[in-house]
């Protein structure tokens, strides 16, 4: 390879594939906690593309955005898992097929 390093497009491709795997997991998983983990996977994939673009433009702000996403994701995980515990107490199940009170 003439130039050193690897193209940034590969990082973006990895990010896109991870995001798609997260969406597929969101669609096929049948456990509430695993569905929530797929959302975390999507958040991580988006963070990777933020860091890649921050490297591309030599900008610090992209990395700071990732830092804020991490903090919000930590808060989201705490609240989401609390909701999951509340749902489990009310319905005694984690299967998303049985949690269908708001379904049409």
């Amino acid at each position, binding site marked *: 390879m003439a130039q050193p390093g690897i193209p940034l497009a590969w990082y973006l491709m990895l990010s896109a594939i991870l995001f798609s795997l997260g969406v597929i997991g969101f669609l*096929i998983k049948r456990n509430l906690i695993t569905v929530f983990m797929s959302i975390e996977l999507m958040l991580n994939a988006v963070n990777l593309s933020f860091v890649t673009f921050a490297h591309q433009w030599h900008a610090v702000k992209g990395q700071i955005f990732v830092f804020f996403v991490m903090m919000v994701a*930590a808060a989201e*995980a705490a609240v989401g898992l609390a909701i999951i515990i509340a749902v489990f107490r009310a319905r005694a199940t984690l299967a998303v097929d049985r949690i269908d009170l708001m379904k049409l």
Partner: protein
Amino acid sequence: MHLILFFIFAALCLAGAVNLLLQTHPINSALSLIVVMTSLAVLYLLLGAEFLAAAQVIVYAGAVMVLFTFVIMLLNAGREERTLGSRAARVVGFPAVAAFLALLATVLLKAHGLGRAAMQEGVTSTDDLSAVLFTKLLLPFEVTSVLILIAILGAVALTRHGDGERSASK
């Protein structure tokens, strides 16, 4: 060197993500998600984001995933049963994912002007990051701390609420 490290950890990332989908037990999925997050930290390091690599390991692979495994063990989540899923997911979801990935792949592979990443190039030190974070972006930073406080209070209120209802109904 960069190439080898990228391939090792990108492969680990993808293997962990696929394993997350294939495993039926939530604890196995959680452990493979930890693999994904730790490999992502190495990729951040390759892209010169040293603070974010540390934060990724501490916040995501550490704190968030400990919370996940704790809840899995607390609720004694068993093996999930595979069902066909909703019709909307089959009809709209999977084609939409495929179209999204194909669109992104064509755009990215045709993109011009995207640079290359090499070792020890374009490294953002924690110094630079904190200089911007604590001068220009001090207000958002403080607002986020309030957000986290509200999230903690919300989590406590949500989990206590179930107790109150149950004891009231008894």
